[in-house]
């Protein structure tokens, strides 16, 4: 496949880019080799039953390349196709990549997951749920063999449902202000619990809870990236060598981090209340800060710097 990189690739918005544009801009120029490229036509066999169009790559781009001259394996979800969903083919491509990383020590020891997904593709529900389970197991097993798995969250679909679970299984998570992650997405919460519980149309509310800034402040993500290809590249390069070993000590530290968090913030009813409890001087102002000022606030926070996961 060709390389659609162009001179403005570094400043291109991650949020607005396609999966292929993100990969082309993120990796060293010309270094990307795709596994099962679209010319192989490995498409969903199920969507035609619903009279829905398939995609030649099933919305999942997998392969290998280099980032700052480091060899990496990569997987990128196309959030615009079916909401970047986990399904039979897209899931198998991701599971295959992770299992290869687990089993073959000659492959790169770093896997980057460019998540952009609302979760399981409903038309392939059983296959999609199985795919999520297999992906999470494969990530944990790969980490057990010393592979670092980094999630990049900043796409239009966010990382919800199975993608949120997948992100939480990774060694490290980088997120942008536009990025969102969680298990149940805003529409799902509203549908099940009512609009009084969570108004999915209230963008400020949605982002204050699920958005990148809140996730970074609470320690739900390990790096905050500007919404550009260069921003994510810098964030990932800073994380690559800081991934913790996947051992009992790390898991105990993660348990302590989460127990501490629920003790300190569990009674809060809004994101602003949590930011107050975290000791942030002007909590109302968090969403108005520029990226540099926000990064300064993160530096001074306990909890955001826990070395766990």
């Amino acid at each position, binding site marked *: *496949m*060709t*390389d*659609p*990189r162009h001179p403005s690739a570094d400043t291109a918005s991650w949020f607005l880019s*396609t999966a*292929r544009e993100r990969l082309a801009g993120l990796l060293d*120029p*010309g270094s990307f080799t795709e596994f099962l*490229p*679209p*010319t192989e*036509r490995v498409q969903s066999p199920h969507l*035609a039953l619903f*009279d*829905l*169009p*398939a*995609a*030649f*790559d099933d*919305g999942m781009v997998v392969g290998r390349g280099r980032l700052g001259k480091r060899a990496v394996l990569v997987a990128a979800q*196309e959030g*615009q*196709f*079916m909401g970047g969903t986990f399904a039979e083919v897209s899931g198998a491509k991701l599971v295959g990549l992770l299992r290869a990383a687990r089993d073959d020590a000659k492959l790169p020891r770093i896997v980057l997951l460019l998540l952009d997904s609302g979760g399981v593709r409903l038309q392939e529900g059983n296959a999609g749920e199985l795919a999520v389970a297999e992906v999470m197991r494969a990530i944990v097993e790969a980490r057990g063999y010393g592979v670092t798995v980094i999630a990049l969250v900043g796409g239009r679909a966010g990382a919800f449902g199975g993608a949120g679970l997948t992100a939480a299984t990774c060694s490290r998570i980088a997120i942008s202000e536009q990025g969102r992650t969680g298990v149940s997405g805003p529409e799902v919460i509203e549908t099940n619990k009512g609009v009084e519980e969570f108004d999915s149309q209230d963008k400020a509310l949605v982002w204050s809870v699920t958005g990148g800034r809140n996730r970074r402040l609470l320690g739900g993500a390990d790096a905050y990236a500007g919404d550009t290809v260069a921003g994510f590249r810098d964030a990932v390069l800073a994380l690559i060598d800081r991934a913790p070993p996947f051992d009992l000590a790390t898991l105990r530290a993660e348990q302590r981090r989460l127990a501490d968090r629920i003790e300190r913030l569990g009674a809060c009813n809004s994101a602003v209340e949590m930011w107050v409890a975290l000791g942030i001087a002007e909590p109302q102002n968090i969403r108005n800060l520029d990226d540099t000022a926000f990064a300064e606030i993160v530096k001074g926070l306990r909890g955001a710097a826990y070395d766990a996961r």
Partner: protein
Amino acid sequence: MEILKVHHKTRGPAAGTIGSALVGVVASGNLEVMLERTLADTECTVEIATPVRGYDDVWKAVVTDFVERASPGGLRISINDGGARPDTVMLRLLQGVRTMEAGHD
């Protein structure tokens, strides 16, 4: 799902040496176009998969116009359509041919 296959003779080969390219995304009002340089220099095929029925004549008109403008000889073109308008289809086809012209960096 409607499958349409269109075959054209072209004036000459498409420019460039890149073997394949993919442009666009299957999303509402959008489409993906895959181009593969696998045919004889004066042949071009376009295969379209679309969930929107009854627009065969419009697709054929857009493809004929495209072949006339771009002379995409040698290209096997495959489309997964998400309900794109004819002007979007034409822009994606031209973007695909331009991408095939570009050199590796």
